[in-house]
């Protein structure tokens, strides 16, 4: 039985692991990836100590810091269940079961999906959640961007320089993104905006060839070779149903990062902590690790 299992290796999980290792706790980190959303961040100018660093570089620094300690790491492994049985906590993953005295859930957030027919089939076959990565592959094509917040507007702005035509499909009546970005998008000759519209299906053969949308009560098909889904983020909390969550499925924590189950802590973007920032996630990770350490000292385990 481990002293501590940390689920996730973003800024919260990695910081927690460093604190735990320095407290000489027997700790294991289980994560699908290393760096979490930090890897996907472009330029970072607000992480203290770095006036400028890119997301991949900062994630590499985090990884290097963690690997300075002999921390056990299970990469490419996803948590599937979490429960407390007596005094031990059991973490089920897609590869096995682990037991510990304490757990920190730091599993972060992921891109929200459309949940429409065709989405699964055309992932990476014309449908993408990373405009920054994949936009250049759509050179000269007609594409659709789904969403109306900052990330959707940002995707449209990046694509304006590359593609021939952009349909911006927004489910709400008006954009929620920053006005300065809205102006840039609306003033572009190649952008057509459909507000109050909904995506019903992604269609194609091997690759995307179009999308079916519904607007003003009628369905229509737009011929596009690319679909960029930018409709926000969802917490990776599905496996932690026994933990109290708020209306957004974020795990509820108190100021000590305790959840409703004693011995289980949570930190970072997966929690209901206000403001999602790399520096906040890191700080929350350290608080959770110190909390877990205190819990270990204060409780007798048979």
């Amino acid at each position, binding site marked *: 039985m481990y002293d501590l299992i940390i689920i996730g290796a973003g800024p919260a999980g990695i910081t927690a692991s460093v604190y735990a290792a320095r407290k000489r706790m027997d700790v294991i980190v289980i994560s699908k990836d290393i760096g979490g959303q930090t890897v996907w961040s472009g330029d970072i100018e607000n992480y203290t100590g770095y006036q400028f660093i890119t997301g991949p570089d900062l994630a590499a620094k985090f990884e290097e810091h963690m690997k300075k300690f002999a921390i056990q790491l299970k990469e490419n492994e996803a948590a599937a269940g979490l429960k407390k049985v007596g005094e031990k906590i059991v973490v089920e993953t897609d590869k096995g079961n682990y037991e510990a005295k304490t757990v920190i859930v730091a599993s972060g957030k992921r891109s929200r999906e459309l949940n429409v027919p065709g989405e699964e089939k055309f992932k990476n076959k014309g449908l993408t959640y990373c405009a920054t*990565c994949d936009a250049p592959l759509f050179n000269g094509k007609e594409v659709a961007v789904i969403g109306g917040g900052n990330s959707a507007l940002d995707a449209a702005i990046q694509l304006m320089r590359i593609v021939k035509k952009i349909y911006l499909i927004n489910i709400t009546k008006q954009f929620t993104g920053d006005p300065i970005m809205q102006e840039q998008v609306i003033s572009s000759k190649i952008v057509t905006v459909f507000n109050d519209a909904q995506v019903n299906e992604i269609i194609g053969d091997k*690759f995307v060839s179009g999308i079916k949308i519904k607007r003003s009560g009628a369905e229509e098909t737009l011929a596009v070779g690319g679909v960029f889904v930018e409709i926000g983020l969802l917490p990776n909390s599905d496996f932690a149903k026994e933990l109290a969550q708020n209306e957004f499925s974020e795990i509820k924590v108190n100021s000590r990062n305790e959840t409703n189950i004693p011995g289980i802590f949570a930190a970072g973007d997966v929690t209901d902590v206000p403001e999602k920032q790399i520096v906040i996630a890191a700080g929350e990770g350290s608080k959770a690790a110190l909390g877990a350490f205190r819990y270990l000292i204060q409780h007798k385990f048979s």
Partner: protein
Amino acid sequence: MEKKVKVYSTSPCPYCIRAKQFLKDNNIVFEDLDVSGNQAAAEEMIQKSGQMGVPVLDIDGEIIVGFDKEKIKSALGI
């Protein structure tokens, strides 16, 4: 014998950067193909991998989609 390694990538893609860094760290010589400015390479990548996500690695004909460290290691025999 040294294996022939090609990396299809775009410059801003984070996992492309990390995949290339991983190869460099392991002293693997590779051909870097930026598919954003090279339509022929983009088509070659899509044809080889049957998909449009980057990075794609071609290690002696074995196609690996994404920065999958374990698959890359096993393909390289390291």
